[in-house]
C-alpha cells in the first residue's frame, strides 16, 4: 500500500487514531510519519494505554538508511536491565530508570517532539532522593562510553546528510561527555 500522504513511498507504518469514538486507520511511510504534526498524532497517545509500537518510527532509524549504522546503534545496551536500543525503538518503552541515562542523547530530541519539552518542571520527590546518587558507580563509565559511541555514529550520519548544524551539536555533546569521562577516571 502506498503512503496516504505522499502517495510515493510504500506505507510501512500503520496507526489507528480514535477521535471522538471514531476509529481511523492511517498508513504512512516512515518519512511522512516523522514529518507529521505531533499534535495530530497525539490523539493516539491515549491516556493510559501503552502506545506500543506507535512511536517506533519516531525513535527509530530511517528504514531507508544503511544497515551498518543501524547495527551500530542496536548494539547499545543498557548495562542495568539489558534493554537494547533496538528494543526501545521497537516497543517505545524503557526497561529501567537507568535506560534514561544510557539512551539520553539518542532520544532526547524525540522526547522533545512528543512532549514539547525535555526538561521537567513541577513536583520533586520530597523524601529520600539523594541527588546524584548512582545505582552503580562502576557502570557510569560504561554508560558514558556507550553514549559517546552512539553520538559518534549520529555525528557521522549528520555529516553524511550534510546537516552541519546538527553535526556541530553532536560534536559539542561528545566533547562534554569526554570531559565527564575524564573526571570519572
Amino acid at each position, binding site marked *: 500500500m502506498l503512503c496516504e500522504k505522499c502517495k510515493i513511498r510504500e506505507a510501512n507504518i500503520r496507526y489507528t487514531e480514535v477521535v471522538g*469514538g471514531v476509529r481511523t486507520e492511517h498508513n504512512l511511510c516512515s518519512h511522512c510519519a516523522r514529518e507529521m504534526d505531533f499534535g495530530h498524532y497525539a490523539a493516539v497517545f491515549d491516556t493510559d494505554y501503552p502506545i506500543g509500537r506507535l512511536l517506533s518510527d519516531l525513535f527509530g532509524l530511517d528504514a531507508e538508511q544503511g544497515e551498518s549504522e543501524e547495527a551500530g546503534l542496536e548494539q547499545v545496551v543498557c548495562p542495568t536491565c539489558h534493554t537494547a536500543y533496538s528494543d526501545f525503538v521497537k516497543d517505545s518503552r*524503557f526497561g529501567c530508570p537507568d535506560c534514561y541515562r544510557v539512551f539520553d542523547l539518542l532520544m532526547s530530541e524525540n522526547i522533545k517532539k512528543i512532549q514539547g*519539552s*525535555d526538561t521537567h518542571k513541577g*513536583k*520533586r520527590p520530597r523524601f529520600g532522593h539523594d541527588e546524584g546518587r548512582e545505582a552503580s558507580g562502576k557502570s557510569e563509565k560504561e554508560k558514558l562510553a556507550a553514549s559517546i559511541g552512539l553520538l559518534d555514529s549520529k555525528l557521522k550520519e549528520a555529516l553524511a546528510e550534510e546537516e552541519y548544524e546538527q553535526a556541530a551539536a553532536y560534536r559539542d555533546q561528545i566533547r562534554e561527555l569526554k570531559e565527564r569521562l575524564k573526571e570519572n577516571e
Partner: protein
Amino acid sequence: MSKWYQDTEAGHDVFTASRVRLVRNLEHYPFPVRLSEADGRELVEKLETGLKDIGAADGREFERIPVGSMDQEAREALKERRVINGAAVSKEGPESLLLSADERVSITLDGEDHIRLQCICGGAGLNELWSEADRLDDYINERFDYAFHEKYGYLTAYPTNVGTGLRAAVTLHLPMLSVGKQFGKLVNEMSRFGVAVRGLYGEGSENYGALYELSNQKTLGMTEEEILSLVQQMAERLAVSERKIKSLTLRNHRLDMEDEVCKSYGVLKYARRLSVKEAMTYLSQVRMGVTEGLLKLSEPVNLYGLMMEIQPANMKLLASEDEKSDIRQARAAYIRKRLPELA
C-alpha cells in the same frame, strides 16, 4: 460505604467525572516489563507491606486485590468501573491493587509501572483530587525512594508519561455536541491546545452514551498546576458549547427534546431486553433530561454509575445465576429496578 459513583449526581451536568493519575517507579528496580516473575512478586510484596497502613493514614479502608491472579472478566469489570487501565487487564505476572472502599483511590502495583496512583470522583474536582493524590504520593515516597532524573523528572516505562507522570482527565457528557457534524473536527483541534479527547465507551468506531474523556497530552515541561488548569479550562470550553447548544435546542425545539428524553425513559422502564448500546443510548438521553429539568425523578439516582454497572463484565457480576444465560434480559431487569419512578 457507598462507592463514589453511587453518590448523588445532583449539580453535575456536563462534568460527569474527574480523574487524576500519577505514575511512579522505584529506584534500583527495572520497570515491570523487565522484571522476572520472582522479582515482580518480591516487589509487589515489598510495596504491599510498606503500604499496609495506608488506610489508617488516609482515613478510609483499603482492600488488597490480587489482580494478577484474577480472571479476565473480573479484571474487565474493574476496568469498566475505571479502577484499572487496559494494560492492567491484559498484563501477565504478579500485579496487585490497593483499592479504597469508596473506589475513589486505586493504587495499581506492578502494572505498566511500579505504581499507578489514581484518584477519581464524580463531577468536577481536579484540584481536590490533585491534593489527595499529592498527599498519598508523599506517603508512598516516605516509604520508597522514587526513580527521579534531574532533567526528565519522574521516570516512567513509557516516554509519554515521563516528567510529572500526571494525567488529569475530565469525563464530559456531550449528547448534543457529539452529534454535530463538526464534532470530529473540534476534537481534532483540541490537540493543538495540548489536550486529547477520546470516547469512553463504545465498540469499533461507535460511541455509546456520549461520554468523552478530555486529558492532557504532555506530562513533561509543565507543572502539575499548569496541567490541571489547562485540562480544566479546555473541559470548561467544551462544557460551555454543550450547554449553549442545549439551551438553544430547549428554546427552539423543546417538545422534540422532551419527546426524545421521555421515550428513552419509557424504553428503559419497560423494555424486557437491552443491549449495552441501547441501554447506554437511552441512559444518556435520560441523564440529559434530568440535568435539563425535562424529567423529574421521584428520587435521585446516579445515572453515570448506572452506565458503568450495566457494562458487560459488571452486568455479569451483578446478575444472578439464573440470569447469566440471558444478560440482555438481566440488564433490562436491573435498569427497571434501579430507575426511579417519575415524580
